[in-house]
């Protein structure tokens, strides 16, 4: 009797909390969350950035500042060109043109308030509190102008078709997306502009969910042109060859779609591609649909690359510089510009693409393709290659060339199932899972992965937070943990602690996710395992800070952290892949129901 009373009291309490939140009004509380997220970003930006006071090379902050200096003071044609005024060995510009334009715009802003910080030559290694403030404001403004509207767009699209009862978690979901601790720490602490490319990607996802495929193509092309971390030339050739084979099989030349396909060789590209292709195939006129998308992508790319399209050399030069180039694509573009014999050129290029893949992966025209020279992994990234290298010395066993092939095939075989699922049955929910799965595949298996690349799987995980709250929670925790050594180096432990606590507190907000609260408590063994893992990680946090590693193994703690994180990431990958495939049955059932209705 007493027990029941207690429970009733608790239920009343939670009902009360619920109505309280509903009454807030979603638009108004979204506004509050947006301002709060902005405030947290401002507060984090008070902390030091990467490489502060660390001459002569400094860190990412100096790289970005240097790009502003270069883009402001040199004409666009010389941005990627080594010259007496532009020393490419000192943080040379090696991001795609959209980054360069963004740097230019920010440089204009900096010059207006503080010309010293972007003066040619003299501003190298410039560090002043006012300069730092302005630089921080450039990130803040890009976040507010791109990431925030994109997140709001996504939320409004995602919840537009739902009954009002399901809208309860909307504010909670928005808060999780906007207050993702990893993104804030990297962008506003460490100093980078991930918010731009991720914001564009969210925008593209939202556009796809709202059936604006053309807008999605534009946004995603822009995202690709902002950061080549999402890009790796290797996959272009590979994907081209897959498509080539499929072309032969189907004997249909989706020639525009082909180009489209090539652009999408990013972490999210397989998902975008397969979803769009799957949708197009279901249209009445797939060829028309695909060519529409292809044209839009092509147009966007042409616009962005316009300053470098005046000559073949310049174009290829920039491509080589940013390691961006999809060899077949650029040649294809050129062929469009130079002669009209597209069909034959395209075939030729495809063959050449496959050939380069088979030979060396190094197209003849390029003098340098740096990432291939760097080896399969760097530092301690919690991906497959780095983790298994504790046991298997990949770098000694194989040549770089064969490693490339191995990593490539591992990546493709990991994201292939989710691609197949999307082509077979494209659905909004499945698309989000596919994004998560393909970015996981790239993070775990691709060549040359950076710690910060974990931001990419985190993004779709945060978009899926309503469906998979636990996956989101777990992934955020370990993503943060995997970046812990990096953030320690940047002296960002304090915001690390504050933001991870904040994210946990927000996750367990009293009036938060009504729709997703776990119904029953998990079995005891699960609780035990989970708490054991968390305990381990907490101990590791402290040990990493306080203890000196033994001299024989100077990177012992990093390796242990990496091992723990990798195991969790791998488990999550398996789980989400399974989840995506079980979706297939559900969605089929749903469609049947709809038809019946």
């Amino acid at each position: 009797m007493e027990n029941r009373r207690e429970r009733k009291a608790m239920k009343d309490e939670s009902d009360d909390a619920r109505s309280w939140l509903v009454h807030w009004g979603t638009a108004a509380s979204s506004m509050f969350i947006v301002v709060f997220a902005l405030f947290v970003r401002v507060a984090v930006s008070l902390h030091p950035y990467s490489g502060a006071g660390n001459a002569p090379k400094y860190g990412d902050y100096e790289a970005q500042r240097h790009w502003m200096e270069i883009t402001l003071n040199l004409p666009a044609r010389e941005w990627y060109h080594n010259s007496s005024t532009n020393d490419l060995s000192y943080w040379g510009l090696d991001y795609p043109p959209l980054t360069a334009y963004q740097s230019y715009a920010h440089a204009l802003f900096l010059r207006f308030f503080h010309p010293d910080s972007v003066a040619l030559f003299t501003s190298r290694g410039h560090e002043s509190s006012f300069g730092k403030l302005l630089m921080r404001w450039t990130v803040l403004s890009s976040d507010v102008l791109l990431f925030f509207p994109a997140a709001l767009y996504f939320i409004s699209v995602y919840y537009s078709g739902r009954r009002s009862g399901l809208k309860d978690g909307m504010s909670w979901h928005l808060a999780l997306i906007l207050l993702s601790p990893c993104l804030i720490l990297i962008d506003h602490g460490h100093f980078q502009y991930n918010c731009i490319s991720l914001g564009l990607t969210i925008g593209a996802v939202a556009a796809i969910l709202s059936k604006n495929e053309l807008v999605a193509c534009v946004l995603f092309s822009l995202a690709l042109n902002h950061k080549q971390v999402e890009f790796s030339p290797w996959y272009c050739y590979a994907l081209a060859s897959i498509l080539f084979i499929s072309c032969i099989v189907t004997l249909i030349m989706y020639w525009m779609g082909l180009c489209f396909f090539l652009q999408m060789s990013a972490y999210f590209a397989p998902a975008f591609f397969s979803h769009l292709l799957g949708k197009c195939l279901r249209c009445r006129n797939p060829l028309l649909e695909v060519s529409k998308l292809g044209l839009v992508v092509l147009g966007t790319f042409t616009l962005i690359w316009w300053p470098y399209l005046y000559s073949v050399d310049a174009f290829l030069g920039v491509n080589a510089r940013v390691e961006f180039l999809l060899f077949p694509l650029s040649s294809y573009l050129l062929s469009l510009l130079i002669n009209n014999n597209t069909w034959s050129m395209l075939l030729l290029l495809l063959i050449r693409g496959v050939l380069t893949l088979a030979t060396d992966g190094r197209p003849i025209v390029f003098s340098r393709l740096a990432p291939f020279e760097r080896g399969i992994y760097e530092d301690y990234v919690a991906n497959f290659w780095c983790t298994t290298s504790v046991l298997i010395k990949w770098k000694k066993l194989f040549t770089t060339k064969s490693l490339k092939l191995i990593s490539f095939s591992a990546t493709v075989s990991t994201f292939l199932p989710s691609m197949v699922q999307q082509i077979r049955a494209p659905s909004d929910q499945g698309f989000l899972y596919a994004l998560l799965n393909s970015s996981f595949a790239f993070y775990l298996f691709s060549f040359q992965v950076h710690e910060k690349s974990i931001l990419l799987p985190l993004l779709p995980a945060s978009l899926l937070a309503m469906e998979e709250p636990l996956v989101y929670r777990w992934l955020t925790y370990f993503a943060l943990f995997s970046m812990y050594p990096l953030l320690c180096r940047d002296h960002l432990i304090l915001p690390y602690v504050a933001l991870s606590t904040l994210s946990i507190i927000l996750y367990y907000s009293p009036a938060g996710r009504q729709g997703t609260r776990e119904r029953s408590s998990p079995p005891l063994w699960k609780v035990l395992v989970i708490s054991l893992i968390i305990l381990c990680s907490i101990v590791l946090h402290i040990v990493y800070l306080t203890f000196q590693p033994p001299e024989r193994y100077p990177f012992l703690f990093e390796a242990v952290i990496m091992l723990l994180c990798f195991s969790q990431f791998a488990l999550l990958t398996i789980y989400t892949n399974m989840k995506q495939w079980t979706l297939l049955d559900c969605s089929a059932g749903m469609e049947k129901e709809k038809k019946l209705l």
Partner: protein
Amino acid sequence: MRTVRNPNVLTAMKELAWFAGIATCIKLLLIPSYRSTDFEVHRNWLALTHSLPLSQWYSDETSPWTLDYPPLFAFFERFLSIFANLVDPKIVNLHEGLNYSADTVIYFQRISVIVSDLCLFYGVYRLSRNLDSAKRRMIWILIVWSPALIIVDHVHFQYNGFLLGFLLISLSCLEEGKDLMGGVVFAVLLCFKHLFAVAAPVYFVYLLRHYCRGGFFRGFGRFLMMGAAVGMVFLMAFGPFLYYGQIEQVIRRLFPFGRGLCHAYWAPNFWVFYIILDKGLAFLLAKLGINIQAPAASFTGGLVGNSSPFAVLPQVTPLITFMMVLLAMFPCLVKAWREPRPGMITRWVAYAYTCGFFFGWHVHEKASLHFLIPLAIVAVHNLEDVRHYFLLSIVSCYSLFPLLFEAKDYPIKVLLLLLHSLVMWLGFSAHFSKIASVKAVKPRQRRDKMGSGGSAAAKEGGLIVGWVGKRYLLGLLVVEIWGQFLHPYLLGDRLPFLPLMLVSVYCALGIMYSWIWQLGWIIRCP
């Protein structure tokens, strides 16, 4: 009965922990922000109490930031210095530690403020635990997430949250009828920071009439008991200094009346109008051809000495301000004398602090916290209170803006105020639209209301600030834009004191409104 309350207590504590947790994360993030000289003041006190014997605490002059808080605060610093010494011995070194600004000292002191805020949370919890959950939540938002407290304590650096915690505990004891406990806690508070003594008359009258009642002998007995308890507290605090013969020195440090009527930045109170009137008259008379001797000291120059800064109007002495504060408090004292009700004590104390702020001698703008925080407790009860509090909290938070003047802190203070006004507006309008919808219990209409909850809440939001209030808040925006952007652009370096003066005068209007409103409320209240 207990079994029903227990889960409530548990959920209440959990929820408070949630609010407090978010606030704590924000405070942690703000650790590297700007810190005022108060930071060095408190560091010096740590060093002073750690390395000197008790007898020299109040006579040491190694640093210009001498100890001028009452003894319990000095003991508190002594307590903290034990840990400071463990963290980094240089913090507590009297000579080498001067202007020490390594990470250790910053982290240590900032975190000590954050931890001492637990006292505030406990006070809030005690005061709000018996309210219904919606009101409780609003109170927590208003106090635990108070932007004014964050600006003063966690950016500017002070221990107000900790001290206000004691005030709230004392008030909650009085509200629950535990008068002796409330009195003792208030005495403890006074021994931490004597500026809180402004409310002492209210406490005295209230306790005299509420606690010491029930016939002459019983009342007198209780009076003696209260006197003994409070006396014990004071004896424990001041006793050691009495023993060392330092008490005169302590008193001299605690009440430095040589400081002048106003601070360099004028706190928005009555004296702002007085000064402006004086300047205006002087200007007018000079125009009329009457020769006015220019004052030797000026308010805009910063330091104010002993000479009269007024050209026309009579000099203001500490005694005059003291009398004015008492006079302003008088209606409230009469009310407390006639009918000492526990439910009213929070308002009365808040009113007393408002009077102290509005008419007091050498008032700091930070002192507005003393009435802002207690008022939050009573702000949620009806729409009239809400309207008043909404305006008051924005104005007093805005009047703290000049404390943070560095460019990097600018977005922080603006966003804090914006967040606060947003959350107040949202919370209050939701709260009162809910009450409205409960009142209109028509089952048919109820469904419609649920459907358009958001828009109904937005409509109700209009009720929270009236027409005048809206104009006033817009004016605040104009003052800010003028001070930050237009003034440097249009006038350059001329009249550098004008923006701050505008802020003071404009905020003083708001505070005056609040004072009059509170006075009216206390007089009207049956």
